[in-house]
């Protein structure tokens, strides 16, 4: 009690001495320590004597060095100066344990305690260019041994101009902030700081992992661009929390680095949120709405505020962008949930949890509702937990959402793969079935083709047989036409054979009689006559035989045998046969036959029967034509004018024989001249022609002998057939 009275007396004395000296008295220390922001004196300039505790500083200017440098224009103007503080602690406070000072600064300083140099932060120099300010964040300075209750703190201090001063994490850039505490109190502070570190670096780690994870997811599956946006967002927040962690732990001390880092950190903060919201838009596959643009513009405005408002700019940009972007994220998510967007509920839950976490944190921090109930460190643990929980809920929910999307994509791909496999199998099965059907159809077709071929072959055989029969019929028909001619031809020699034989019988009788009578002269005469008769018989017998042979040759089925042939003779022989044939039918028929054979013609290798048949056919046609015309003329009583004529010519040149059969008959109408070689085409009345004559003739000449057969005809004037037979 007496001590307190004494203290009060001393204080009063000090005050009453005319304010010669300002003394800061510390009676009690709160758990978190006491910020020494009063009692400080300032003088610009640099003088080593000012460290002396006994130096009279009563004329010095009062100052609060814990203030931000930007709020201390006199310091900035001076560049260098001294701070002094007279500190009086209560002995009850001092006795059990020594006082510890914790220094925060954003300048260069040298601390003297009771005139003795104690601690240096940075490089102090009257030359502003040499000043190196460092950032000290609750750096410990130990005081002399316990018990000393009166202290004079003298600080030689300089500020570093030319730095982009800004408030890192909203904390003031104190010139020289000193907090007094004790060892026991410091321990709880360290615990608090360690806890804070754990939470801060947990966030750093989580955001790093999220950035890495989602950039990998993006690389693995580029179509989901939400992963890329979310990865960038996470990278920004990783940077944000890492910066804070480095700052609070004093791992970063260089003022310049910290200022630049702070600047970047503050400006990047809304960027991180913008990417977070962009990731949501991308994940929901929404077109960017007007709200998105408004939020972006707001962020730009917040950046401008940050640039202009030194004191609260950081709060504006960080809290403002958090509110704006979280609201937009919430809005978009609610829309997505309403649209029953797959997985949007996950993010909504994340957002709700985030709100709950952050709300609890701020309730804990700023209301006495909880603080009074827990010890400081415990409250800090809760506070940090809620804060970390709240901060991480949205990114984690988005991450979970994207992961489920990835999984869904994989699943759907797997399902699609399975479907494709199934379809492939089905297609394969169908293909095989089709193949089988095709094979079967092929087999059926093949068997049908075989069957049809056999049928066709049979038809062909039948046709061949029929053709052979028809050819035979045609032969027989022409033979029929010939019969009369042949009969005439054969009757003539027969006539001679018979009659000469009969005469010979008579003459033989006479010869015997004459011989018996001894009439030798008569006998010789008779025997000479007999000899002549015999030679006539032989000659005519041969002639008949030759005719029969020709006839046989003509009718013989196996024609086509080739041998050297005198075409002149062949043409004449058949002309005769044909002529007699038609004369036999119509004895009244008269025709002038002209032959113009080539005397120099050598033997030509042909099938004589075939060529004979052709000639016979042409002759018959020619006779038929002239006869028709004659009959027409007769009907018109104009017979004197018309003289039927058939001309047969043979001419040989170097490589071919040309046979001409020309008549001045009715001619062939131009309308049917194309059809005359068609099988079964005939102009003759039914039963008189087979219609095969010219067809077979054409075949014999073109296919049989490699020649050609042409016709020139003028209706009413006549027809000429020209046959060319190549010599080789």
């Amino acid at each position, binding site marked *: 009690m007496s001590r307190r009275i004494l203290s009060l007396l001393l204080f009063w004395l000090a005050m009453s001495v005319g304010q010669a000296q300002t003394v800061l008295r510390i009676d009690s220390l709160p758990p978190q320590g006491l910020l020494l922001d009063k009692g400080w004196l300032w003088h610009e300039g640099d003088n080593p004597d000012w460290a002396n505790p006994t130096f009279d500083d009563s004329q010095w200017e009062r100052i609060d060095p814990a203030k931000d440098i930007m709020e201390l224009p006199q310091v900035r103007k001076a560049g260098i100066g001294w701070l002094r503080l007279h500190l009086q602690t209560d002995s009850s406070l001092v006795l059990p344990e020594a006082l510890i000072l914790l220094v925060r600064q954003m300048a260069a300083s040298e601390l003297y305690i009771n005139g003795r140099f104690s601690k240096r932060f940075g490089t102090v120099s009257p030359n502003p260019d040499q000043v190196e300010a460092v950032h000290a964040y609750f750096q410990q300075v130990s005081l002399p041994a316990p018990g000393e209750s009166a202290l004079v703190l003298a600080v030689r201090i300089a500020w570093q101009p030319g730095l982009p001063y800004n408030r890192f994490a909203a904390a003031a850039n104190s010139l020289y902030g000193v907090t007094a505490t004790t060892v026991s109190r410091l321990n709880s502070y360290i615990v608090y700081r360690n806890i804070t570190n754990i939470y801060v670096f947990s966030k750093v780690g989580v955001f790093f992992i999220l950035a890495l994870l989602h950039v990998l997811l993006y690389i693995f599956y580029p179509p989901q661009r939400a992963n890329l946006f979310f990865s960038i967002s996470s990278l920004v927040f990783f940077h944000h929390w890492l910066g804070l962690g480095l700052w609070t732990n004093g791992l970063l001390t260089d003022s310049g680095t910290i200022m630049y880092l702070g600047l970047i950190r503050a400006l990047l903060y809304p960027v991180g949120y913008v990417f977070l919201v962009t990731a949501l838009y991308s994940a929901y596959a929404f077109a960017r709405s007007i709200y998105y643009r408004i939020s972006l513009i707001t962020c730009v405005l917040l950046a401008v505020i940050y640039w202009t408002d030194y004191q609260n700019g950081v709060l504006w940009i960080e809290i403002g962008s958090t509110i704006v972007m979280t609201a937009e994220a919430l809005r978009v998510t609610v829309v997505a949930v309403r649209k029953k967007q797959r997985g949007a509920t996950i993010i909504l839950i994340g957002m709700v949890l985030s709100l709950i976490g952050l709300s609890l944190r701020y309730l804990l921090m700023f209301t006495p509702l909880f603080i009074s109930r827990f010890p400081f460190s415990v409250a800090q643990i809760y506070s940090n937990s809620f804060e970390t929980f709240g901060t991480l809920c949205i990114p984690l929910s988005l991450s979970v959402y994207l992961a489920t999307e990835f999984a869904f994509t994989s699943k759907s791909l797997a399902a699609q793969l399975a479907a494709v496999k199934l379809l492939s199998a089905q297609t394969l099965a169908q293909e095989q079935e089709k193949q089988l059907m095709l094979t079967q159809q092929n087999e059926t077709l093949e068997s049908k083709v075989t069957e049809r071929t056999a049928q066709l072959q049979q038809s062909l055989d039948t046709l061949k047989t029929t053709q052979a029969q028809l050819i035979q019929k045609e032969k027989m028909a022409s033979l029929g036409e010939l019969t*009369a001619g042949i*009969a*005439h*031809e*054969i*009757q*003539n020699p*027969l*006539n*001679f*054979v*018979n*009659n*000469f034989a*009969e*005469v010979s019988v008579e*003459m033989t009788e006479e010869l015997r009689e004459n011989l018996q009578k001894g009439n030798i002269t008569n006998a010789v005469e008779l025997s000479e*006559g007999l000899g*002549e*008769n015999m030679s*006539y018989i032989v*000659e*005519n017998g041969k002639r008949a035989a030759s005719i029969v042979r020709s006839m046989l040759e003509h009718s013989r089925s196996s024609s086509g045998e080739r041998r050297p042939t005198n075409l002149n003779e062949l043409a004449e022989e058949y002309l005769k046969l044909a002529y*007699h044939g038609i*004369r*036999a*039918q119509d*004895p*009244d*028929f*008269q025709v*002038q*036959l002209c032959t113009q054979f080539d005397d120099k013609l050598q033997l030509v290798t042909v099938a004589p029967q075939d060529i004979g048949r052709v000639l016979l056919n042409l002759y018959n046609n020619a006779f038929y034509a002239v006869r028709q015309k004659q009959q027409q003329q007769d009907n018109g009583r104009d017979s004197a004018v018309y003289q039927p004529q058939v001309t047969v010519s043979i001419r040989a040149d170097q490589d071919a024989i040309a046979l001409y059969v020309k008549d001045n008959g009715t001619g062939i109408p131009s309308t049917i001249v194309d059809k005359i070689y068609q099988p079964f085409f005939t102009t003759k009345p039914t039963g008189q022609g087979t219609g095969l004559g010219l067809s077979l003739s054409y075949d014999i000449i073109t296919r049989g002998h490699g020649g050609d057969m042409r016709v020139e005809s003028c209706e009413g004037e006549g027809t000429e057939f020209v046959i060319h037979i190549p010599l080789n």
Partner: protein
Amino acid sequence: MPKKILVVDDEAQMKPLFEARFRREISSGEVHLAFARSGEEALTVMPGSGVVLILSDINMPGMSGLELLRRIRAVNPQRPPAVVMITAYGDQNNRQQASHYGADDFLTKPIDFKLLKDKLTEFVVDDQPSAS
């Protein structure tokens, strides 16, 4: 007076054949034979020859026997001369035509000379009174 017979045929051996078969009649002066190788030749030989019988082939190059008959009958509608057609074609069609044109008879080859000689007597003897 030998009976003058004209044989018209394109076959050259008809001459030796007829001469052989009528050798007795020729040597006895009963028959005189003349030959023509075509209808045209026959028509040139005919006038004023005193031919009482013409034996003609039908089927000859150029003028046929039937045409020859027609021409003869155009000048001499009745015998003499008697005209007998001899042909290898013995069909009905030819016979009818020959008869239609005024032939006295129709013989087919090979010639039956016995029959011919009989007919010869018939043709010539029967006609003799009307001719004289």
